């Protein structure tokens, strides 16, 4: 009987993706382009939120959008109507974007002509949280109708994000969503997170959010 021996491996499973993501951030810094990764459940209002963000910042930055969708071009068409460069990554059955896919998307855009690119990640609170896309900042949307227990069910997503957008706050009066409890839960997981309460539909809170995004973008793209 052959002897069984032990080999030490000691490697991070997702090291390749992390390395590629770090390279992407270096390239973005060199081309003076800020990359934002936007994540949420399906139906949280990502596309409406992006459209509201575009409307606020279109006159100040040259914008681009990378849309990830399982198999539809509906969102990219809505964004393209605003006059902003939008490309569609068809992810097929994939549940998330990784750095390699984002890199392909960025190749299709002329980064020398763009200041700010927003990735609309696949609608899902699980898988996108695990994969670094190379973005400079990660933002997630939680919409009021989804419920205030989501940080408990998807703790990783709330841990990896720099910003939490609480969308559809116009629903609060008819909902039992406990904003204070949700805030406390999120702050325990991620004390550094910034929280903006908004309604992408009626425009409430959009100004505070876009002021933050403008400040972060300017800080990153300055020569």
């Amino acid at each position, binding site marked *: 009987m052959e002897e069984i021996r032990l080999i030490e491996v000691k490697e991070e499973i*997702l090291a390749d993706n992390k390395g590629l993501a770090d390279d992407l951030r270096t390239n973005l810094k060199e081309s003076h382009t800020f990359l934002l990764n936007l994540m949420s459940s399906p139906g949280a209002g990502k596309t409406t939120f992006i459209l509201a963000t575009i409307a606020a910042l279109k006159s100040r930055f040259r914008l681009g959008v990378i849309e990830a969708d399982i198999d539809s071009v509906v969102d990219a068409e809505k964004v393209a109507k605003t006059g902003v460069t939008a490309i569609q990554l068809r992810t097929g059955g994939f549940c998330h974007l990784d750095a390699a896919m984002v890199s392909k998307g960025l190749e299709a855009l002329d980064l020398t002509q763009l200041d700010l690119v927003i990735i609309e990640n696949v609608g*899902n609170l699980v898988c996108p949280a695990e994969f670094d896309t190379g973005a400079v900042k990660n933002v997630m949307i939680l919409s009021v109708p989804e419920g205030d227990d989501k940080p408990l069910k998807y*703790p*990783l997503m709330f841990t990896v994000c720099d910003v939490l957008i609480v969308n559809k706050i116009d629903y609060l009066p008819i909902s039992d969503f406990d904003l204070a409890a949700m805030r406390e*839960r999120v702050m*325990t997981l991620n004390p550094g997170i910034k929280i903006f309460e908004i309604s992408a539909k009626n425009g409430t809170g959009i100004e505070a959010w876009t002021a933050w995004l403008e400040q972060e973008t300017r800080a990153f793209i300055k020569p």
Partner: protein
Amino acid sequence: MHELPVTESILGIVLKHAAANQVRAVVSISLRVGEMSDLEDEWIQRYFDYLSKGTLAEGAKLKIERVPVTIQCNGCQTTYTVKIREEKDPKCPHCGATGGKLIAGREYYIKDMEVR
């Protein structure tokens, strides 16, 4: 759902080490995965069995050690573990403060492997 690309990465790393060490077969692989991750052990093994067919790692058993979520308190620096999907409002057991630094629970690591 993202078990497939994760399993592909595991297999790639394992086969690289298998080739470098001139092994005949991989018997088992020990992983450390943080409780923060949503990976399902059973599915990683199933995908692994499928992907590893015809390779040196065919039939290898994955041994997955779960690492609990551990927080270091912002107030008193005590470290404590949290059942992250059960405790609604985790607090420091020493001083009662909420919030802190996540110091474990996000591991995604291949420790070692048994080979022949």
